[in-house]
């Protein structure tokens, strides 16, 4: 499978381990990723909060670049980038006035042909390959799949899974040999970009999410968004929980199941220790 790859700003910074694990699992899964040359920020929640045209034009620039570089499908592993890019394709397709404003400011033609994918739906598509390549089934590991908001909403833009009762992460988790738990806060917001400007809100929301995962018997929470990860991992210390709850990326969980080293997957970069997630029946990796 060949895809254009839009990393977005966090993949080289706060969610470095997301990119590390994605690139590590790409080879065994037969996934070829071609980074979009000269990509720029999608605008994330700040452009969205301030100006509607900016919020579409910034992602559209990247879609136009992807087209120019010959990509039909682009993966954006950050859920916010995914949502903004997909939203841009939707707005340009459905609002001729917005389309006109956006095309007027771009430096290159924009046909709006690119299909934007997130990491969860790509991994779901790769489940058959994943199943035949599992070296270390994560038997007995109870996983709470946390989708957050932007992967799923609004469904007319995202469309790859049910916005209230999704199942794609669970499908991938099962393919890894682990056991997804049933729990309630799967699609509730973590507070997203408010993490700096309103930390107490994020702590409040995160505490509710992790408490529910804990009460449902989860050993680990799996995410596919750098903001969710940061809000549940980096901010966990302030939540006053009864015990730590590790939070890993879906790509990291897949990497473990594929038999990759935890160091190759960036598992040491988390604030809440992920030591308990590595299966006890596996040979211990060095370093």
């Amino acid at each position: 499978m060949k895809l254009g790859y839009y990393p977005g700003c966090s993949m080289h910074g706060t969610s470095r381990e997301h990119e590390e694990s994605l690139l590590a699992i790409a080879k065994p899964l037969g996934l070829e990723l071609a980074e979009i040359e000269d990509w720029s920020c999608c605008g994330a929640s700040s452009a969205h909060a301030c100006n509607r045209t900016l919020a579409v034009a910034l992602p559209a620039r990247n879609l136009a670049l992807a087209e120019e570089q010959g990509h039909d499908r682009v993966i954006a592993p950050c859920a916010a980038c995914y949502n903004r890019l997909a939203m841009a394709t939707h707005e340009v397709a459905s609002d001729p006035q917005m389309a006109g404003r956006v095309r007027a400011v771009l430096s290159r033609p924009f046909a709006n042909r690119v299909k934007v994918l997130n990491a969860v739906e790509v991994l779901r598509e790769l489940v058959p390959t994943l199943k035949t390549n599992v070296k270390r089934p994560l038997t007995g590991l109870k996983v709470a799949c946390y989708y957050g908001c932007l992967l799923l909403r609004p469904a007319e833009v995202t469309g790859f899974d049910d916005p209230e009762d999704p199942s794609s992460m669970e499908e991938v988790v099962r393919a890894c040999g682990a056991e997804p738990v049933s729990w309630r806060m799967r699609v509730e917001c973590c507070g997203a970009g408010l993490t700096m400007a309103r930390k107490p809100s994020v702590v409040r929301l995160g505490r509710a999410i992790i408490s529910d995962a804990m009460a449902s018997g989860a050993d680990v929470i799996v995410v596919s968004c750098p903001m969710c990860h940061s809000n549940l991992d980096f901010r966990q210390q302030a939540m006053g929980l009864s015990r730590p709850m590790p939070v890993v990326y879906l790509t990291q969980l897949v990497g473990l199941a594929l038999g990759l080293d935890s160091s190759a997957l960036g598992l040491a970069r988390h604030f809440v220790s992920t030591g308990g997630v590595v299966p006890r029946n596996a040979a211990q990796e060095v370093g």
Partner: protein
Amino acid sequence: MSGRLKERIRAMTGVNVARCYQCGKCSAGCPMAAETTIRPHDVMRFVMQDRLDRFLGDDSIWLCVGCETCTQRCPNECDPAKVTDAVREIVAGLQPDAAPRPLRAFHEAFLRQIEKHGRLGEMGLIMGYKFRSGRLFSDVGAAPGMMSRGKLAFLPKNVKGLDEIRRIFAACRDSGPEAQDAASNAGH
């Protein structure tokens, strides 16, 4: 363009707020409902009543996290998220300092980084945020942990197509809500 609030909102977003029958499902799912006085269904109601004044002097619309839960759950395709976005633009056009200072600081720091470099470096964002918000010491204890985990990108590599990005910003800056509506209406 002068005109009643609900007509301005319709011109900006295409949403006819009269579709809203105040079921409250949007507000029931809003993650910020615990911290706001104006919830999504209130936004819809105030727009319906042409009461722009109800939004002034209240932080609520700025606390929207953009989670799209309201829009997803609306049974009548009302798009409260998009309406809230548009109300923010109108309010900011009237009162540039309407947003709470830390949020304004964050968004300004973020967007300034993109305009300067094309991509975001955490250090630039954090420094810009602290400077603009006055929160010089928040999360200072976290810095060593972030750095030792390799999670703070210091210098963003400048994007080559910076001209295009600056042009995008300039065009969007010049078009406040009214100019954007005028541009839209000129297309009719």
